[in-house]
């Protein structure tokens, strides 16, 4: 294994195929790497998402792979799990993530270096959720890639738990959701690595993708999703609660590409910022001229509990027709004093009142019956 810094590795002229066996799928990787070199790793300068400087963040990461464990628990025989052979047998699938989006450095980074593959094909509605745990160890980096192929008429719940590490994780997860299927995701991010994760979803007619996210990063964390509504009547709803640890950072970016008519998308974030943390919310909606009857919502609520913390919100809509119902709203501020006083006046201490108000905000997305509830920090339960 080579011992280079990330900076060196990004400056090298061509993909070093001797690095941990990248020769498999080498043509595809070389193509991806060429693009990575042109676009670059996301930095504040070159990126459309303005709040992450991944390039700077990973400058001092060791260019060696770190130990990565992927644990998938499922109870159904109708779920098939493949690894790299899925791509070596069908090379066209390898570069699918750039089908609609060919200017994202984070995606090319994964496509250049993917080191772990899990391709999960779901053929029947499983009785229980699928549990996926990704844990990393140490200061190196890792580039896992997941593909979920969901056949028609399936209803599946997938739980992701991400944790550990002290390096850099660049993870890519694709969802191919066939007609009339629904995927409900519960994701918990407790990563202590610099974490960059990309969801790419392709939705066929009448399919739905729901994300319920709880992000509790202990480092810099960036989540981005690109949903492509390939056929009519598909929908997505992405809701994230973000409570970063002291001094940490959390970015949440969702891009909904309404390629078909009668689709609906919904993106929301609730974040609680304390002790010098920084969060960003970016939602982009793209609706072309010929697309009819779209619905799109974006909303972001952030509570700043101290003056050192900051929140950036950037809802964006690229809408080229009138046949759209759109809603968006952003509120950033401290807790409402009148609400605190009302609770105080009923005998609740200031601390208790604040806790109740914060719980109230979180409970808009995570109720006490949600699988995410138990992962909330004690003070918010």
């Amino acid at each position, binding site marked *: 294994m080579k011992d280079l810094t990330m900076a060196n590795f990004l400056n090298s002229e061509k993909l070093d195929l001797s690095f941990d066996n990248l020769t498999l799928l080498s043509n595809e990787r070389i193509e991806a790497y060429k693009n990575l070199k042109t676009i670059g790793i996301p930095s504040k300068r070159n990126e459309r998402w303005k709040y992450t400087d991944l390039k700077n963040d990973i400058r001092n990461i060791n260019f060696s792979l770190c130990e990565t464990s992927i644990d998938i628990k499922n109870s159904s025989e109708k779920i098939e799990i493949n690894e790299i052979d899925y791509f070596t047998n069908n090379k066209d699938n390898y570069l699918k993530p750039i089908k609609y989006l060919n200017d994202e450095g984070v995606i090319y980074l994964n496509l250049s270096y993917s080191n772990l593959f899990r391709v999960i094909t779901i053929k029947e509605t499983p009785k229980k959720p699928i549990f996926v745990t990704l844990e990393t160890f140490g200061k190196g980096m890792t580039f896992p890639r997941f593909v979920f192929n969901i056949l028609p008429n399936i209803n599946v719940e997938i739980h992701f738990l991400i944790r550990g590490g002290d390096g850099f994780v660049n993870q890519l997860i694709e969802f191919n959701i066939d007609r009339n299927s629904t995927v409900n995701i519960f994701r918990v991010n407790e990563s202590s690595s610099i974490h960059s994760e990309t969801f790419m979803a392709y939705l066929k007619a009448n399919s739905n993708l729901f994300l319920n996210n709880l992000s509790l990063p202990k480092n810099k964390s960036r989540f981005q999703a690109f949903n492509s509504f390939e056929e009519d009547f598909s929908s997505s709803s992405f809701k994230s609660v973000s409570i970063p640890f002291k001094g940490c950072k959390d970015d949440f970016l969702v891009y909904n590409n309404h390629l078909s008519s009668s689709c609906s998308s919904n993106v929301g974030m609730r974040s609680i910022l304390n002790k010098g943390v920084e969060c960003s919310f970016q939602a982009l909606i793209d609706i072309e001229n010929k697309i009819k009857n779209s619905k799109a919502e974006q909303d972001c609520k952030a509570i700043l509990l101290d003056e050192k913390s900051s929140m950036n919100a950037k809802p964006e809509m690229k809408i080229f027709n009138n046949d759209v119902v759109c809603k968006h709203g952003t509120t950033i501020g401290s807790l409402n004093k009148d609400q605190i006083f009302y609770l*105080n006046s*009923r005998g609740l201490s200031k601390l208790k009142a604040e806790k*109740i108000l914060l719980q109230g905000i979180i409970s808009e997305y995570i109720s006490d019956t949600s699988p995410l509830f138990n992962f909330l920090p004690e003070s918010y339960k």
Partner: protein
Amino acid sequence: MKEFLNINNLSVSVDEKNIINNLNLKINQGEIHAIMGPNGSGKSTLSNVLAGKDGYSITNGNISFCEENLLEFSPDERANKGIFLAFQYPVEIPGVTNINFIKTALESKREFNGLDPLKPGDFLKLIKEKAKVLGIPEDRLKRQLNVGFSGGEKKRNEALQLMMLNPSLAILDETDSGLDVDAFKIVADAVNSTRSKENSMLIITHYQRLLERICPDFVHVFVNGSIIESGGPSLADEIEKNGYERFNNG
């Protein structure tokens, strides 16, 4: 008779603007006092100051409650010591269910007074009973606190909290405003039913018809931040007939 509230030469300003001027008011245990006064005269300011809202500067005077200096206590301490303010404009609190909120409030008061929390069954029985008296349907107890409640529903919910918390000094800031004719009677009678020798009340209202039903011991006319005349219920009748003109003219 035990002295509950004693407001002594109180002056309060907001943003350098004097709102309460040299106010004196004493309320003993078991007494019901009513305050009537024109819009903007400072009635809500007084109730907020009593409940401990910040943003007001006390430029003169003092307030004692049960012979302790009230101004030293935080709003929650005041509440736990027995002061309750029914808000003129109750605040909406999303994400918190009405019933859980009332339970937490009751528990916090009981804890302060060294009592164990009510058994869940007993609490439920009590709140359902009180809600019934006030004509509050049970599903409203499960809704988020005041969120989307109509004006009248909010007021009834304040009355519910009053009945559940059973304070020693209840301050009702226009709890009767915004209620329809039937609700008005229900709420007035419910408030009246909490009346006891143990507790006292300060009722702020614009309407003599409330005082007809509740029959206060004292009626005070409040103009420009101070009480300019005190008397019995007949004073309310006079205001109902003639308005505040006589008082404005000094």
